[in-house]
C-alpha cells in the first residue's frame, strides 16, 4: 500500500505495508541514515526521531502511525553548512566516540531543550537515562547538552 509521509518538511510517498517499522522506511526508502538500527525493541534509543516534536523510537513505531504527523530526523535539524545548535554543541564538545548512539542523544536532547532550555545537569542526565552509549562518553555528552542549553538561552536573551 502507499503511505503519505511528511519527513523533514517534505511530503514523501512510499510503497510499504502500514506495519513496517518507520525506521526501515526512513533508512531504506528515503535514504535518511541519521537514525540507526540498534536493538530493534525500543530499548537503546539509537533510532530516535521526532514525531510532532516528541522523541519516538522509530524501530517500534509502525509507519502508519507517522501518517499525518511531522517526522523529523537528524537530517532535518540542520544542514551540513548550518548545523542546529544542539548538533554544533556536540561537535564542539567532542561528544562522539564511535557515534552510533549520537543520533538518539541529539534528538532526545533537542526535544528536551525545545521544551525548556532552563535545564540543569540532573535534568539532562534524567532525560538521557535511557539512551544507551557503549563507548562511555557520557560526560562529554552531558557537557554538549549543557553547552547547547547555554547557547539557546543566550540567543533568546540577546
Amino acid at each position: 500500500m502507499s503511505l503519505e509521509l511528511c519527513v523533514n518538511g517534505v511530503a514523501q510517498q512510499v510503497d510499504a505495508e502500514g506495519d513496517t517499522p518507520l525506521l526501515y522506511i526512513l533508512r531504506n526508502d528515503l535514504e535518511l541514515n541519521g537514525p540507526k538500527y540498534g536493538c530493534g525493541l525500543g530499548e537503546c534509543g539509537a533510532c530516535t526521531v521526532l514525531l510532532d516534536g516528541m522523541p519516538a523510537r522509530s524501530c517500534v513505531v509502525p509507519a502508519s502511525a507517522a501518517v499525518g504527523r511531522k517526522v523529523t530526523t537528524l537530517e532535518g535539524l540542520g544542514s551540513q553548512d548550518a548545523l542546529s545548535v544542539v548538533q554544533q554543541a556536540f561537535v564542539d564538545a567532542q561528544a562522539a566516540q564511535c557515534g552510533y548512539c549520537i543520533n538518539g542523544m541529539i534528538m532526545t536532547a533537542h526535544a528536551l531543550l525545545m521544551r525548556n532550555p532552563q535545564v540543569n545537569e540532573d535534568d539532562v542526565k534524567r532525560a538521557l537515562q535511557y539512551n544507551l552509549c557503549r563507548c562511555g562518553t557520557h560526560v562529554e555528552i552531558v557537557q554538549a547538552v549543557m553547552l547547547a542549553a547555554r547557547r539557546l538561552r543566550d540567543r533568546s536573551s540577546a
Partner: protein
Amino acid sequence: MNAVYDTGDSMDWAAVVIRAADAAWDGSRYVGSELGPVDEAGALALGLEYRLIRDGQFCAVAAPSREAALQIHAALGLHWRPYTPVPSTVSTPSGADTTALQRKYRWRVHADPVSSATMPCRAYWQGTSLTLRANTGRDAELAAEAAAVFDIPLDGISVTGADIPPDQSSYDAAIDAAIVARMLQRPVQVWPCRESDLDTVLTIRHAANVGSDGRLLSLLTQPGQPEVLRPSAATICTLAGREAVRFQQIENERRLGADYARSQLLQAPLSTIRLDSALTMTAQRAAQLFAQESYADELAQEAGCDPVQWRLQQVQDPAGRALLEQVASAAGWRTGIRGGNTLADGSETRRGQGFACAHVIDESRDPALSAWAAWVVDVSVDASTGSVKLDKITVGHHLDDLLIADAEDSRWGQELASAAQNLLQAGGTHDLWLTRKDGDQASSEGRLRSDLMTAGPAPITDTTARIGAPAALSSSPALGLPAAAAVANAIYDATGIRLREAPFGRDLSDEVLQLGLDGNTDSSSRSGRPKSQARRAWAWALGIAGGLAGAVIAAVPWRPVMAPVTPDLSLYSAAAIERGRLVAAASDCVVCHTAAGGEKNAGGLAMDTPFGTIYSTNITSDRETGIGAWSFAAFDRAMRQGISRDGRHLYPAFPYTSFAKFSDGDMQALYAYLMSEPAVAAKPPETKLAFPFSMRPMMAYWNLLFHENEPYAYNTEQSALWNRGAYLVQGPGHCMACHSPRNAMGAEKNGPSDFLAGGVVDGWVAPALNGSAPTTVAWTAQDTFDYLRTGFSDRHGVAAGPMAPVVASLQALPDSDIQAMAVYLSSLRTDASAQSATASTPAAEPSRAIMPPEPRVLSLAGQNVYEGACAACHDATRGSPMFGVRPSLPLNTNITADEPDNLIRIVLEGIAQPADPALGYMPGFADTLNDKQIVELASYLRGKYAAQRDPWNNLEESVQRVRAESERHASHTQGGRP
C-alpha cells in the same frame, strides 16, 4: 559555564494534592477529617525523588513527573482522624407570630464528575511575583485571593488561561500549584481534581408574615448553606486558625430577588459546603430565585390573587413594574388565579402559563447596576405520558443605562429556550444519539450540546418584549434566572402539581405520570417490570418441565423461516442511517464481524470459546452471503431472540442477550444503516461445535433459561445521564458479554454480585467493572471516562487486547455518551468497593488502613529485564517523555490483578494495534524473552509494585499456558484485527 544554569529556573514538577473525602467549609473554616501522621515507608521504598509538603490541612506530594507523584501518593500511608459533624439543629424560620405558609424548596446540582478538558494549572514564582496559568473564568478573583494568601502585591501576579472552558476545580488547583511552587522554588503543575460523583442538594425554606388583611408584611428566607463563594480549597485547608473570612465577600455584595415587602434573610443553620461539590455561585443564585419565585406564586394563590398582579403590588421600582407589565402583555397573559383550572378537563393535553421574574443589583459596580428579567412560559402537559412540552417562552429584560441593541439576534433566544428545556430532563431519552463533532474532546461543546440533546420539539421563543436589550445579554446576571420558577409555575397552572425540587428530571415524569394514571389513560409504560418478572418465572417453569419430560426436541418451539425480501431503503432518512451508524459503533459490530485483513462486516473472525471455535457471520447487505435479503422483522428477531432468518438458532457468542435491550428506534436505525452499507460477497467458515453444542435447537432451552427478551426500562430513580449510560452499557455496548462471568452453559451468571464481576475472553482477563477488581487506586468516573475516550487512564493503564478495538469503535460517540457510561459504571462501583478491602482511594476514604509493605526479596534477574526492556518507556521519573503515553506500572491494574495472564500476554505480544495511534506502540517480546525471563520479570513487577498483594503462584505454568494461548490465537487470526 556552570553558573549559567544555576538560576533556580528548572523543569516543572508535578504535584498531587491530598484531601479528605469529607473536606468541607462551613463559611469560615475547614471542617472534615484531619490528616494525622503520614507513613512514608512505602513511598521511600519506591526509590523515587519527591517532596511531601504540609501546611495545616494542606498536604501535597510533588515529584518530577505526574506519574511519579501519583505513584508516590498511592504508596503513602495516610492516617485520618475522622470528623464527627455536629448535628445541625434545623430551625424553621420564625420572627413573627403570624408566620404563614412555610415551604421548603430544593435545587439539585448535578455532579459533573467527568470532563473532557484536562489541562494542568501551572504556578511559577520569580521572587515575589507569581505567574499562574489556569482556566477559572475568574482571573481577577484568583489574583486577589493569591495576593491575600501570599501577602504579595496584586500587580505582581499575572494570570493566564488557555483556550479551554473555564473550570471550577481549576481555581483550587491554581492556588495548590502556587503553594507548592513557592515551597519548592520551581515551577509546579497541578491537575484539576474533578468534583465528586455526588449531587449537591440546596435547600431553601421560605415563610411569610402576612397581615390580618392578607397583605404580605415580610418574607423570610432561610438558605440551607453559607451564602458566599468559598475561597480556594488550599486556602481553607491552610487557614487553620489564622484570620479567616476575608475572601468571602467577593460576590456577596450582589443582592438578588425582586424586592417583595421587607425581605429578611435568616442565618443559615450550621452547615457546610463540601470542597469537592460542584456548587457554584450561579447554582446558588438559581436555587434561591427558584425558591423565591415559586413561593411568590404560592403566596399569590393563597391570597387569591393573579400572580402578576400580586407581584405588581409588591414591586416598587418603576423599571421593574414596567417590565413585568410589558412581558405579561406580550405573552398574552391570562389573568386569574392559577392552578387546577384545567384539572377537570378530560382532554389529554393540559396547558398552563407560568410567570417569574428576577431583580439583581450588582453593588460591586459603581454605580450599582440594576437588572430585571421576567419570563412567561407556556407549557402543555400530555396527561397520558407525563411529557411536558414548552410551547412558548417570552422573556423580557431590563438593564439600567444600556442602549437598545440588535433585537434580531436569535442566538440568545435559542440559548434561553434550551436552558429552559434542560430543566425538564425528564425520562425516556436514553436512546438519543448525537454525532461526535470535531474537537469534541477538550471542548465545552459536549456540555452545550447535551443541553440541546434533550430538547424535543423546538420550543417557540418570543423575545420581542425586550426593553433596552443590551449588547451582550450573557453578561446580565438576571436574564436566565427566572426560568426554573416560570416552568414550575406553568406546570402548576397546567396540572395543579407544585414541583418544589428543580431541575425537574427526577420526579417530574413520576408525578405527572401519576396524574395520567389517575386520569385512567393508557399506562402501558408503567407495567414493564411486573410483566418481565412474570415472563421469567414462566420461562423457568417451562425449562424445568422440558428437562423432566425428556422429550426435548418435541418441546422446542418451531421457528419459521422468514421470507427473503428486498429492503426498501427509501423508507429510511439520512438521519436514521446516521443514527444507525452510531448504534453500530456503540455496538462494536465491526469488531467481531470483520476478519483480520478482511472486508468490514463481512464476517469470518474466529472466536475461541470453551465450546469450540465460532466464526462470525457476514452482516453486509449482500443477498446471498450477508443479510441483504433479511426483512426488518427477521433482523429484529435475530437481534432480540437470537434466531437467524432461516429459523436456526444463533449461539450467544452473538450478544443478543444484550441487544434485546435496544429501543425500537435504534433497531430500525441499525437495520437501515447495515442495509445501506456496501454489499460484500464473502462466505465465512462454518461454525462447527462439538456435540452436544452442535445441536442448535438446544439453544431454545438455553434461551428459556438464560435470556430475557425485554427492552431497556428507564429507571426514574436515576438521572437521564445515568440511564443513558446504563442503556449503552447493558444494550448496545454489551459490556457484560466479556466482563460478566459465565456459567458452565456459557450464559452470563445472574447472581446479585455477578453483574460485570469480570470474565475471560480469548485468554484475556476482562476485569470486574463492579469495583471488586483489585487496583492500586480506585477507579473514578473521570478515570473511566479517560479510559473509554482515549484508551488510556494515567491512573490505571492502557486499553489493549480485545479492549483496544472497543475503544476505537467508541470514538464515533460524543463525549456526552462516554460520560454517561462513566457515570453509570461508577455507580456500580460505589456499592462493591465499599466491601472490597483491596480497592482503596486514598483521597476517597477518610481513614485508610495502612499495610506496610512486607520486606520481600525482589528478583535481581527480573529487575535487570525491567531496566533493559521496559524502563525506557515505563520509567516515570527518568528518561525523556516520548511519543505516546507512558503507562505507570505501579498503578497498572494488570500488576495488581489476581491472575498474571494479561501482564504476560502483553509482554509477549506488545501492542501493535492501539486504540488510537497517538497512544503509542509496544513491541512484543515473545521472541526475545524466554519463559524464565518473563517469570522473573513478572515476579519482580508484582513484588515491587503490588507489594500489598500476594505473589503470583505457578508463574512458570502461567507463562507457558499464556504463550501457548497467544501462539494459537495468532495462528487463528494471522496477525490481529484489520
